[in-house]
């Protein structure tokens, strides 16, 4: 009988001063899928900012569907960019994200997906659903970059391994 499990592989919480990027390396190949859960915010100015995401150092084209409550739209990028809130958002608020990476040990291109919300307290929130196709081999590392700024203190990332059997 199948016994699916979700196992914490590693986590990281950003300390004082922030960091430009957070990566996980030597990811074990013992799971079916990967799930990265994040509470995350950037020092880059803006209610939201694009933040580059890579698998094995590679990214790929993405499409994001977003909604603000008063409108909706789509964006497309040549590289995998996942929006989190920037320094214009209310201090102390963080974006909440799930990034799912299925079949990460496969040699085929990876179709990853994410959903999350950038939060600006009671004034603005941006809901995002995105997908990206990243052509790379078995995933052994991943990284998320804050672009021209830093991920701020208390940003936290949890990397889980999902086993379907």
């Amino acid at each position: 009988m199948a016994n699916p499990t979700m196992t914490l592989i590693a986590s990281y919480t950003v300390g004082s001063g922030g960091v430009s990027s957070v990566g996980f390396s030597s990811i074990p190949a013992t799971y079916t899928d990967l799930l990265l859960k994040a509470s995350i915010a950037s020092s880059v100015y803006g209610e939201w900012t694009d933040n580059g995401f890579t698998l094995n150092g590679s990214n790929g084209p993405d499409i994001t569907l977003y909604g603000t409550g008063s409108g909706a739209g789509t964006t497309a990028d040549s590289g995998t960019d996942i929006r989190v809130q920037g320094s214009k958002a209310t201090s102390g608020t963080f974006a909440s994200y799930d990034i799912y990476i299925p079949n990460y040990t496969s040699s085929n291109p990876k179709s990853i997906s994410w959903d999350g919300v950038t939060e600006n307290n009671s004034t603005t929130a941006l809901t995002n659903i995105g997908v990206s196709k990243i052509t790379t081999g078995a995933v052994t590392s991943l990284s998320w970059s804050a672009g021209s700024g830093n991920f701020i203190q208390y940003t936290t990332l949890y990397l889980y391994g999902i086993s379907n059997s």
Partner: protein
Amino acid sequence: MADTPQAVEVNCETGVVTTRDLTADEIAAQAVAAQAAADQKAAAEAEAAKVAADKAAAQAKLAALGLTADEIAALSK
């Protein structure tokens, strides 16, 4: 904030956390990516502003022709 941007890497096998300064190439690549994102955002905002302005101009012209506000609103439903 550190003078040089720093990257953190968590080794999932050992649990060791490594912090290092970004290389010049990485910093340059980040600047290019940030500019591209800013350009894309500006273009999207300009397009949205143009659509809003065109809509307002069209509504004004319809009103000048004698349409009521309800009749104008009905056109977009």
